[in-house]
């Protein structure tokens, strides 16, 4: 019998734990031609404010060792156009749509969530309180325990949709933020968003991207992200959605063993848009080899017993 890949996040059941990360999959429809969206566990939209946004001027990305820095600046079509133009098509394709919600003020977060609550076809809200690329709002909430608590509480009251705050890794103790989110009524947390980073062109002495600062993603950050997921998993009871540099089934499993109920794939989707089927196959293969019937049984199954010193 094929192993069961399904996972549950609160009331939500996903056929598998693989979710396309926000900002790395457009609005999902861009990938219509290369992936069957219904086969993914879920799709997270680009970050959305109430209004449209132009984002930062290009260049917006630069490659770094085993990673990339981006400062897109949340260019987006705003929640109203999203609901009107994108959501119906996503629903048609059977996508489980997570909407990444941004705000410059607490009220804006609440307003965007209210609009989404009235729409049809939203699986969950991912609260982006962690984007390093905008000055106002966002990460201000994500870097303060009170801010996190307040915005999650406010949104919690405004919607019955599952609320999943997305945490920033740019803090001393990420687990305390997961706890604040849990205390405020979050259904799950997702992490990590990108690490604040920069790169300088030494020939011109200028920044490599226009915004100077941007967010680091990709395999480079994976070991830090795995550690953070494990810290959160140990402290909170709500599900943790893990991400940061996942490139294959082994990486996805590493996050799940560390405590992630589901995982998101961002940067690797740029490298290989056909990654989804490969990772799904890899998960099934692993479960079969290890004789595990249900993937969810591996969540947090990390065994901290030290390995033997000898590698042979």
């Amino acid at each position, binding site marked *: 019998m094929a192993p069961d890949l399904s996972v549950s996040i609160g009331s939500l059941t996903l056929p598998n734990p693989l979710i396309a990360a926000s900002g790395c999959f457009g609005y999902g429809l861009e990938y219509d031609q290369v992936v069957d969206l219904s086969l993914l566990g879920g799709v997270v939209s680009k970050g959305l404010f109430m209004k449209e946004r132009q*984002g930062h001027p290009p260049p917006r990305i630069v490659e770094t060792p085993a990673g990339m820095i981006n400062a897109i600046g949340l260019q987006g079509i705003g929640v109203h156009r999203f609901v009107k133009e994108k959501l119906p098509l996503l629903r048609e394709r059977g996508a489980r749509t997570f909407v990444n919600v941004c705000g410059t003020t607490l009220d804006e977060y609440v307003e965007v969530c209210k609009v989404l609550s009235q729409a049809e076809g939203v699986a969950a809200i991912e609260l982006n309180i962690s984007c390093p690329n905008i000055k106002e709002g966002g990460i201000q909430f994500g870097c303060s325990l009170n801010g996190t608590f307040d915005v999650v509480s406010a949104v919690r009251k405004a919607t019955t949709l599952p609320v999943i705050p997305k945490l920033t890794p740019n803090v001393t103790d990420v687990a305390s933020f997961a706890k604040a989110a849990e205390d405020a009524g979050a259904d799950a947390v997702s992490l990590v968003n990108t690490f604040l980073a920069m790169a300088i062109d030494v020939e011109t002495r200028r920044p490599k991207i226009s915004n100077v600062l941007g967010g680091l993603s990709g395999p480079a950050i994976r070991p830090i992200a795995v550690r953070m997921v494990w810290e959160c998993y140990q402290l909170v009871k709500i599900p943790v959605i893990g991400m940061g540099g996942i490139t294959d089934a082994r990486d996805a499993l590493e996050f799940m063993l560390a405590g992630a109920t589901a995982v998101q794939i961002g940067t690797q989707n740029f490298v290989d848009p056909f990654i989804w089927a490969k990772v799904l196959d890899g998960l099934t293969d692993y479960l079969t080899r290890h004789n595990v019937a249900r993937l969810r049984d591996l969540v947090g199954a990390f065994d901290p017993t030290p390995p033997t010193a000898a590698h042979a």
Partner: protein
Amino acid sequence: MPPIEIDARVIANARLSSEYSVLSLAAPEVGARTEPGQFVMVKPAGVTDPLLRRPFSIFEVLRDAQGAITGVSILNKRAGRSTRRLYELEVGDVVSCLGPLGQPFRPVSSPTRAWLVAGGVGLAPFATLAEALAKSQTDTTLFYGARTGEELFYLDFFERLGATLVLTTENGARGTKGRVTLPLEAALQALGAGDTAMVYACGPEPMLAAVAKLAARYQQPSQVSVERVMGCGLGGCYSCVVPVKRRDDLSSEAPGAKEEHANLVRSCISGPVFDGAELVWD
């Protein structure tokens, strides 16, 4: 048609100079779908550094003696780490190739003339375009500028297709000395009343801006192929945006958008070919 992803073997990597090579890839499925001006996202297969693919215009659609499509080539110019690696590839190495991608050139036909304006490696998308134009027997001129005479490549190829060649070099070693916009402007001036030339351009952005403005000044249409840093080539990352006047990505009623800078659209899916009059040049 959806793009194809294929691990393509290197059939040949002809070094044209210490900076340029023509990298031929066994990717018949990509070749079969290619329209002039489209691009591929490539990286050496199995390599994690560089991490991201890089965009390259499809230079030639390769065929065997019987005319069956065997693959595509790219005209690669060393600019940094990826392009250096591509330059160094040997026959038998494998390249991961995703494509064809993007909006192609819209070919014209007689009586409209086709003027292809290439700056340096900007020659790349014009080989397939010139072939298409030759097929429809459209009067075609290639304005081609390079730094030196040695960096003017594939002249025979375009001559065989019946294109008129107008060459410029920065050092004056071959053709007119100076920028390629010089002979272009002369030609625009000389264009008969009622005659139309579609000005196609690919090259450094200052050149594209100059060409688009010239075409506009002489009331001729233009299509330019822009080059932005691309993360994905599929519309997923929003890294490749260019400012356009028309709002085809954001609705024009968008509140507040007017106060912001021009409308930024993704050049990987709305381009890389744009109407020259549509782009905002700063």
